[in-house]
């Protein structure tokens, strides 16, 4: 799964993303190294997870209740937001609210992350993009610069065009 950060391909992704089904089946939590767990699991096992002396992240999607997360994410180093289908755009607004709440570490797009939405995701606050192997092509990197104009403002520069 190629991962893009800063519009470049990163080869070393230290993060292990654990999924709910595996956790439910008792798959063990790695003792070391950065891990991200589904937010439901995080809420249930928060203290144990924070005992580990490694970076911690959560995985969320549009069905989760995220108000508490926006209020308290200072312990987290990564928040991964899932796009379950191509047409599901809730992740854009979640990223926007997350940035607004002051979260400034990795916001990773997961799931249906394809070339034609990369630039929109970046403008909405994502800074890391996990793309499926079958879909990935190196020309994806050009997607960020196809449209150089944005009227609305981005996370990098939140001023809409009339304030620039």
């Amino acid at each position, binding site marked *: 799964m190629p991962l893009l950060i800063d519009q470049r391909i990163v080869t070393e992704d230290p993060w292990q993303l654990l999924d709910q089904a595996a956790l439910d089946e008792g798959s063990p939590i790695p003792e070391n190294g950065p891990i991200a767990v589904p937010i439901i699991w995080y809420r249930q096992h928060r203290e144990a997870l924070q005992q580990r002396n490694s970076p911690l992240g959560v995985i969320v999607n549009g069905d989760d209740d995220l108000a508490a997360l926006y209020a308290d994410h200072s312990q987290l180093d990564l928040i991964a937001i899932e796009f379950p289908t191509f*047409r*599901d*755009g809730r992740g*854009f607004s979640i990223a926007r609210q997350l940035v607004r709440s002051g979260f400034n570490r990795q916001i990773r797009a997961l799931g249906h992350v394809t070339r034609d939405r990369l*630039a929109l995701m970046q403008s909405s606050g994502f800074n890391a993009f996990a793309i499926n192997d079958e879909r990935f092509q190196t020309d994806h990197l050009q997607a960020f610069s196809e449209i150089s104009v944005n*009227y609305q403002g981005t996370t990098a520069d*939140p001023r809409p065009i*009339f304030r620039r």
Partner: protein
Amino acid sequence: MYQYNQIDQTLVDERVEQFRDQTRRFLKGELPEDEFSALRLMNGLYIQRQAPMLRVAVPYGLLSSTQMRKLAHVARTYDRGYGHFTTRTNIQFNWPELAAVPDILAELAQVQMHAIQTSGNCIRNTTTDPYAGVAENELEDPRPYCEIIRQWSTLHPEFAYLPRKFKIAVTGATEDRAASQVHDIGLQMVQNADGEIGFEVLVGGGLGRTPIIGKSIRKFLPKQHLLSYLDAILRVYNLKGRRDNKYKARIKILVEALGPDEFRRLVEEEWAHIRDGELTLTDAEIARAKSFFTLPDYDANAANADAHASLGDSLATDIEFNAWYRHNTLAHRVDGYRIAIVSLKPYLEAPGDITDSQMDAVADLADRYSFGETRATHHQNLVLTDVREGDLYAVWQALAANNLARSNIGTLTDMIVCPGFDFCSLANARTLNISDQINEHFDDMDHLYDLGEIRLNMSGCINACAHHHVADIGILGVDKKGEDWYQISLGGSSKEDARLGKILGRSVPASDVALTVEKILAVYVDQRRENESFAQVVLRVGIKPFKERVYATAH
């Protein structure tokens, strides 16, 4: 009108290239069908019954004559010589080739036109009053705010994948000519107790299979908060709108499910985070937007005695011109000028259709007589907003020579009609044959004038593209075992007194539609008191007498 600067032009040019590449990747098999479908829809491209269909954006209905000529050129070069104006004031081309669409878009970009967000689950073209800036009963010209909304909504990174399409209408007059109560968001300019002008915000209106009138969630929104408030509404909708069922995905369903009070609470809560932030409109930005919609250079001499006398002469000597003047022109704010409506409802032609040569003719007239501008209306007509009274006769003659001067504005044959089964793959029934039938049946203009203002709208299916719910007489095509039938409703309105029509009873076969309309009108004529309009009679007597006449069994 708004002129692109280098930034706007760069955006549309880059968008053309982006779409060219998406089309290339799709044709090469690199882009799956379902993804390309969402991407092409956001660029106005449908795959329809006949061919692909391209819907070109006409932001808030305003067209320069240069743009109109370019549309004529596109119709001639890439299509079959005509286009179709829609209720959303856009224009559709029914026969382009998929592979040619990037080239069409490149041609349109030369005149600052595009097809961005004319379809798909994003914020669509914002619509407004076609008489904005010239109407007499206007609080303020809504177009600068439409332009501000256009920029904010164009390629909005966060709102490109909404649960469903999203339509905003803005109106600045006391009379609502933008059907703002049946839009996802209706913005109505209002004045508060302190004399300030702002917006009343209506949310959750819409037609389609679940027709609903919008609910007011804010009585007064100061202008500088326009964008932050819209942002808050859209964010709540993007996060909470249903995504499991596309028929329940519009914001109107969310507002109904939560109730307007809870919906308002969520919006205000979201808004509290951003209300004084970067999106707050500056005075400079409002002034800049307004600077594009200043008054044209009106002729101070337009109302002179000669012009007046010559108009009087023409009206007295030419009864056809006289009828056109009475029905197709309207009072103007400036003395000596009138608003002239170009009827796209000629006898036995598809309502809203316009040929390449007609587009060229309108462009020429706009240049010569109306400061080079034309407006498209949601009634599928065009408007020349600033014609000198002394020029009206010449304008009428030129329009008549191009089959654009039928004096039927506001009458029964000024119908809104969607293309129906002939062009639309979603249709249940044909519509264009029925509009012909009605035209043939009611071909006596004096009879139409006697009936007065009547809005008849006809949709080929439940999607209600032709606003049949909000017509005096609404006709909806339904399919019964492979045959076309038509359900009729009465008493709707899309104006400030917006209401949904009531269904008359069982649907009628295709052969009986005009006859049924005749019976309905006969009841009106019987019942009307002096000067009472069709709408007033339906409101007063209800639909029962109409029902009885239409479904009376023959003795």
